């Protein structure tokens, strides 16, 4: 996260490759399910043996002895509807929920988060020197009205995308944050309104942040977990 601060986001998970290196973020939506983005994986059939998610820690490279760390293997990847660029990852066992590991709410189907709502992104990705790169960083971003964002992007915005307003000091997601959450506080609950998706540049001052609009895919998420 560029322009963020060290913080706490108990539903944000770190996805690790076979070498144990963090490469993408994700969000815990059910004890045994993590949502992330398709671009983090080579294939919908990818062999994820040896891949893990890390939960419950604020550190990018926690000691294996960290008492709060939960490292859980990934056993399955399920790709979302093609235009969604989402994936669901099934974990080998349910995560244990505690004060450092929590589920994030899913929005109601087709819910549109109101403009001006303050949301947060979180991740262990690049900070471009703006913050401590060894811990989880969090940044606040206000939601931008669809019409305004559409105008800024000259009509290239899809309904399945959600924007946050460009801030004067560059704040936004960067390499390693992709797949992580855009969490918005609604009715006293943190809700997963967006998933961080790769963009051409990190946190450009004059460009809105783009996210996958999760509310359009809630029915798919429930169907995958049910089936």
């Amino acid at each position, binding site marked *: 996260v560029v322009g963020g*601060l*060290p*913080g*706490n*986001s*108990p*539903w944000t998970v770190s996805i690790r490759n076979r070498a144990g*290196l963090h*490469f993408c973020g994700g969000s815990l939506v059910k004890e045994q399910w993590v949502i992330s983005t398709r*671009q983090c994986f*080579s*294939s*919908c*059939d990818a*062999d994820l043996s040896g891949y893990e998610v890390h939960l419950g820690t*604020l550190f990018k490279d926690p000691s294996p002895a960290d008492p709060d760390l939960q490292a859980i293997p990934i056993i*399955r990847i*399920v790709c979302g*509807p*093609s235009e*969604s660029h989402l994936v669901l990852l099934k974990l080998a066992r349910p995560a244990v929920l505690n*004060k*450092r590991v*929590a*589920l*994030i*709410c899913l*929005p*109601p*189907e*087709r*819910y*549109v988060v109101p403009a001006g709502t303050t949301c947060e992104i979180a991740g262990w990705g690049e900070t471009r020197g703006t913050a401590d790169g060894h*811990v*989880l960083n969090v940044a606040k971003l206000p939601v931008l009205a*669809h019409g305004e964002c559409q105008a800024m992007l000259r009509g290239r915005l899809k*309904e399945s995308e959600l924007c946050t307003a460009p801030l004067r000091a560059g704040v936004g997601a960067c*390499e*390693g944050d992709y797949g992580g959450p855009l*969490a918005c506080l*609604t*009715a*006293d*609950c*943190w*809700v*997963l309104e967006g998933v961080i998706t*790769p*963009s*051409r*540049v990190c946190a450009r001052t004059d460009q809105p942040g783009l996210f996958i*609009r999760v*509310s*359009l*895919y809630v*029915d*798919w998420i429930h*169907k995958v977990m*049910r*089936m």
Partner: protein
Amino acid sequence: HRSPLNDFQRLRGTELRAAPNEPPPPAAERGAAQQCAQRCANSPACRAFHHERQSQLCQLLPWSQHSPGARLQKNIHYDLYQKKDFLRECIVANGTSYRGTRDTTERGLRCQHWRATTPHDHRFLPSPRNGLEENYCRNPDRDKRGPWCYTVDPNVRHQSCGIKKCEDAICMTCNGEDYRGFVDHTESGTECQRWDLQHPHKHPYHPDKYPEKGLDDNYCRNPDGSERPWCYTTDPALEREFCRIRVCKKRPRPVNVTTGCYRGKGEGYRGRVNVTVSGIPCQRWDAQTPHRHHFVPSKYPCKDLQENYCRNPDGSEAPWCFTTRPGMRVAFCFHIRRCDDELDAQECYHGHGEQYRGHVSKTRKGITCQKWDATTPHVPQISPTTHPEAHLEENYCRNPDNDSHGPWCYTMDPRTPFDYCAIKPCSGSAVPSVLESADAVTFEECGRRDERLQRKGR
């Protein structure tokens, strides 16, 4: 660790009927396909067997599809297994096991019947075990030039039939993804494991999952964009190995080439986009840093692995490349647009596709759909019984639960319960805008955190 089924070629849903004058075959006995294969292999008279899947019965047959008067017939209850020796048009090693029906020599002379002693008298007379039937080419004396026969020409006593070895009979183009030949041993001579078995090596290439990849029996194939056809081996210590297959002299013309956009999975994309979605430059295909890889341009002559352009040499979902970032090995080039003509495909659906009644029966990844009334590999929650109004016919894509992402089906991949189909919304088909709706917000017990930890963390 070899299966007795390795000596057989399977035809699913097929029955082999004998000529009307043949005596009936022996009664069926109980047994799994492997047990039937063992019984058939032990019986010199047995050339094939039917395996009835549901009742686990097998019926040994003394004929094959090349026997006079025999005919193949669809029968969904049966799988037909025939001994490879009776079907192959090519030979293994010196061809002593060849039991095919070729009856002319390499120079076109007709073969003399083995039971005849004119025009050439000889000592190789037929017996029930030596395979010398009719006037078919055989190799009873292990001649190193392969099967031969006495000829009907009094001036030419015998001649080789010139039957090619299996590794030379059918050549491969490019990397052999289209190879459908009969080589079933690897280059070190190890026998291949059948694709429909999961031992000794467990693997993801189940034939039902990839029907278009030709994963027949235990023949060498290339379902994953490897350098050459390969197979899992029957040696537990050797997971997989390449096979030696002759390369065709003629290179096929590239099909479906596009430059400004991509069709299907973009295997024909030959454009010059050379950055990932997030703008990271791609690694050159001929470089091995920062990422080591086997997609060396010279080994993939038909894939056009030029410069650092996005390409799809391995049948992935879209063009991709290795990136120049050490921490990010590969990335898709999803920013290359899809060709417009593909979006106007003939098969399309309106709304969410609840009324779609077409015959598309594959998922977007090309996996065959499971029949709606079947219970394997997935036990369905939605079936013709639970949703009689939804026209759940055969294995056609449908949308019985009004899924907002379009028609779907249960899949033949045991690891993928359901997936969406390769059907697009029809152009002009309106779906209500999400931006016009506003629902009341209710949540369950989730999305809460200890805010003290947040402050402490900071």
